[in-house]
């Protein structure tokens, strides 16, 4: 246990740095959603963000995801300053470095399970189609849904679809995996499976995971939990404590 903790934190290499993030909503009236958010995430860390509805945790996640560019402050991921890049560059960056899992699976219904997983890799264009297919099958096997690969995405159960969505997030071996309540629509058994998969990715594959969640158990079992309230971080969590506990 401690050995694993050492492995993760000895390098002390922040994979994500957010500094002094501010964001305002102007409708219906001016309102500060995020107030001077500054934090770092280490490589291989499984981080959860919790807080009441409306505390700004989802807003923060979407800013970190590079999809929302309307903010003040700076974001660096993997040593790249993302603040100020244009949309096309951000899209390329997301494609290569960030994987997403949402509350809803958002699989493309006209495509097969395998095709859904392959698409981001085909977009990246780093590998041949045959190789991409092979890698996609690996990811599906990792998540235990490889037997459904040829089925249309719409024909799977909710738990299976969410696992396919995770496989899709993993296809380009991203630096960061972001989840917006990734287990929000799953029953206890499937939540457990999804959680274990994510934890495994962090601890075995050293992929960094940031999840926004409402589920206290999910948060407790992660490496570290940031707690937000009214747009501020009220607790950065204690990594060693949670890491050893897990």
């Amino acid at each position: 246990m401690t050995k694993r903790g050492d492995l993760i934190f000895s390098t002390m290499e922040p994979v994500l740095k957010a500094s002094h993030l501010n964001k305002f909503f102007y409708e219906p009236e001016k309102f500060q959603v995020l107030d001077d958010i500054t934090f770092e995430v280490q490589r291989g860390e499984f981080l959860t963000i919790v807080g009441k509805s409306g505390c700004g945790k989802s807003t923060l996640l979407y800013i970190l995801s590079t999809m929302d560019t309307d903010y003040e402050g700076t974001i660096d991921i993997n040593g790249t300053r993302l603040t100020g890049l244009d949309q096309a560059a951000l899209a390329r960056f997301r494609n290569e470095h960030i994987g997403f899992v949402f509350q809803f699976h958002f699989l493309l219904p006209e495509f097969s399970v395998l095709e859904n997983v392959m698409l981001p890799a085909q977009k990246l264009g780093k590998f041949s189609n045959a190789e991409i297919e092979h890698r996609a099958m690996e990811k599906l096997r990792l998540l235990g849904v490889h037997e459904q690969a040829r089925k249309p995405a719409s024909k799977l159960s909710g738990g299976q679809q969410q696992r396919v969505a995770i496989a899709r997030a993993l296809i380009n071996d991203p630096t960061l995996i972001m989840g917006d309540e990734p287990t929000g629509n799953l029953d206890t058994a499937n939540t457990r499976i999804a959680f274990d998969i994510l934890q495994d990715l962090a601890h075995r594959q050293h992929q960094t995971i940031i999840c926004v969640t409402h589920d206290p158990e999910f948060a407790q079992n992660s490496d570290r939990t940031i707690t937000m309230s009214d747009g501020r971080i009220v607790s950065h969590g204690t990594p060693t404590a949670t890491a050893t506990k897990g």
Partner: protein
Amino acid sequence: MFSTNLQIAKTHLLAKKKQTVVAMLGVTFGIAMYVLMSSVLTGVNKLVDNLSFQATAHIRLYREPDVNRKSLLETKLSGSDTLVKVYHQRPKPERLYLRNASQILADLRKLPGVTGVSAQVSTPAFYNYGSVQFNGSLLGVDIFDEDRLFDLRSQIKSGRMENLLANPNSLLMGAGLAKKMSVREGDNVTLVTPRGAVFVLKVVGIFKSGLGAIDNVRSYTNIATVQKLLGVDKTFITDISLKIKDIYASKTVAERLAARYGVKAEDWQTANATLVTSNKIRDYMAYIVSATLLVVAGFGIYNIMSMTVNDKMKDIAILKATGFSGRDIVQIFLTQAVIIGFLGALLGVGLGFLFSWMISRVPFETPGDFFSIDRFPVNFNPIFYLIGVGFGVVTTLLAGYFPSRRAARVDPVAILRG
């Protein structure tokens, strides 16, 4: 990279086959109607043009009575304080013939752009049939020159064109006139000129141009014969008909020739103003109807693409989240529109060809002998098919662009946050 977008576009199209086919049929009918309208209407225009060239030279040179000449008094007293007004001045009793005709002819034959020249001597004449007289005209020509300009040989229904050369007192008679007078090849007819000279000429052939205005009144004979009838010398020429290379420049060429030789010059477009106008109206009609159909098809595509984009908001959001840029999204949806447009247009020109072919098989009967055709005239010009496909693709590009741009502007955060 593009192949991925193409694959997504293809999957979208195939997932909604019915919608795709409906959108395609919109383009198909639009283009088919464009091809059909253009082929049929320009076919008619071509027929009318050809007909008018059977009767009218590209340019005709002649002289007009000089009614506006100044009176002797006016020339004499101009500049003085006397006010002169001469009423009812009559034209001089002069023969209306082209002076220096032989020089003009020689000059014209040397001009580049002039492909045919025919000198003519025309006179009104009465054809006597028993006690009845028919009004008509007699045209003295060099039969080979005339053939070069008006394709006379193909109009001969009986007898031979060359017979005219063998017998100086012979003529080729219009079919309508011959019918009225019950004259056949080999018969003799009596002609009376306006000045009272009476001649007997032998009918050595009957021609039919298809235009009643000619066939019912005209006869051809040798130039020398008419000159003899009128009692004039060998230099007497009343008209010169010209064939030129660029028929649509005939108006400017006519003006230049008129100035050069000091004669009247009439081009075919002026002479056939009504035909030219109706051709233009048919052209406009074809453009308007085709444009309307294409616009309607364009709106159809716009609608369907808009619906597709609305249906696919979630898909667009997740594609953007996983790294597809706005340009990729435009490509994905625009590709769908262009595929619909291109296939629709191809099908459209095919259908257009089929319709045109069917119409070209329809028997076409006209009252009287005005038009000498028996099938509906259709112009199978490949340019219409090329334009049709081009139009189809351009229309769908435009119709697909706006929904695609909207798709590219979808804010993924708003949708993914749910």
